[in-house]
């Protein structure tokens, strides 16, 4: 095991980086972080549209969310992989393909988190703001969203964990993230598959478990401050 780490540890962490493209665990983290950051504004917009009082906004977005949530991420990745080049005419590399698929996929899930956060607030908040004379969008922006988003912070961290786990699907389109690298190391070593994939699992575990503890602590702190009194319904990851 030690020998394995000594020989392939660096490759596992950053891929071929100084002499080739960045890969491994670093790429997984960059992909997950970028995926979540880019899907945040999109998810927020979709979430707002999903609860908006205007049917022509709500309808298409609800359809989109059902569509994406009903499909496996792998399907979205395949669509992006095969059809982005034919639509845009530019050959998209694996990184951008995966990123675009992740953004589209996560946006649908984030939209549901935002919606759950908004609908988890007492209805009186909106009614109060409206009766004070704020227009709908102002009331949403200044009264409802600040509270709703704070309540859904733990769900956001959980979504980040899901995103880290989702990046592993880059393996299938040949993106050199950590699972792909692990498989390559397995092919090179050949005799120790259990150790290599065990190490891969352990890496994900350290990363995701740490983050989930963080989310848990945050949830508790929010509950103590009385903000989480109406805990947003859990959105299935």
């Amino acid at each position, binding site marked *: 095991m030690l020998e394995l780490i000594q020989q392939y540890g660096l490759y596992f962490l950053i891929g071929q980086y100084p002499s080739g493209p960045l890969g491994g665990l670093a790429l997984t983290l960059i992909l997950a972080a970028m995926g979540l950051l880019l899907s945040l504004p999109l998810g927020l917009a979709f979430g707002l549209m999903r609860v908006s009082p205007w049917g022509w906004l709500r309808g298409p977005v609800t359809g989109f969310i059902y569509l994406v949530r009903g*499909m496996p*991420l792998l399907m979205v990745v*395949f*669509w992006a992989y095969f*059809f982005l080049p034919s639509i845009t005419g530019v050959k998209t590399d694996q990184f951008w393909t995966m990123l675009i698929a992740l953004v589209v996929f996560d946006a649908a899930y984030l939209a549901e988190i935002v919606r759950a956060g908004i609908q988890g607030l007492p209805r009186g908040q909106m009614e109060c703001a409206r009766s004070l004379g704020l227009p709908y969008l102002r009331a949403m922006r200044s009264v409802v969203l600040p509270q709703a988003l704070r309540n859904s912070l733990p769900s956001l961290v959980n979504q980040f964990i899901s995103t880290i786990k989702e990046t*592993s699907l880059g393996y299938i389109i040949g993106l050199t993230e950590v699972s792909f690298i692990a498989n390559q190391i397995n092919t090179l070593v050949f005799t120790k598959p259990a150790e290599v994939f065990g190490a891969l*699992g352990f890496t994900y575990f350290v990363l995701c478990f740490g983050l989930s503890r963080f989310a848990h602590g945050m949830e508790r702190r929010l509950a103590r401050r009385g903000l989480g009194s109406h805990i947003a319904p859990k959105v*299935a990851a």
Partner: protein
Amino acid sequence: MTSFDPQMLLSGQYHDMLMAGLWMSLQYLAFGLCLSLPLGLLIALCRLSPFKALRALGACYVEVVRSIPLLAHMLFWYFGVPELLPTALKEALYEGPVESICAVLAIGFYTAAYMAEDIRSGIRAVPPVQLEAARAIGLPYLRAMRLVILPQAIRLTVPPLISQTLNLWKGTSIATVIGAAEMMYQAGQVESQSFRSFEAFAFASIAYLGVSLAITGLASWFQHRYPVRTM
């Protein structure tokens, strides 16, 4: 892009391949459910048991399994586990449909962790006085669980369990990485043989979506038919 050709999806060899894939995926769903549901219940009961060691074991299982992506589980089960088995068992495994067995094991063990959490939170949502009252009238712990707590918890747990089933269904697509001949794999095969990627992926998408919507429909039917009764 050439024009969409629905004919190849309705008959012929590509149709057969895709349908075989769909059937395989549905089988994974069924077997995965058969494995994960009892296992999830077992783990949930461990996590709620009065013994500290069992609680810790259950918590470890849930945290470890949930923190690792399904794809890594698949790779581990397919490449890693057979190497750890004794030779006779390994040969017996390779005689059979090894990809399918590993895929179902990976999906089942993975989903069990999520289901355990849903079952546990359902059981915990039943007020603790119910258990105390059941114990006070002389029921042993397991009887009290079976006769008093579980019937109430089931209404709370079934909707999230159905949504986990949906995740299980979507997870079957990942079995393609170990070469199990499920729908995603077959769609890829059809794509590479016929160069009709749009048709192949449209079929797979619609099939995934159809089953997903059916499962979602089941969840909302259940919630409507058996609403949660609050104390």
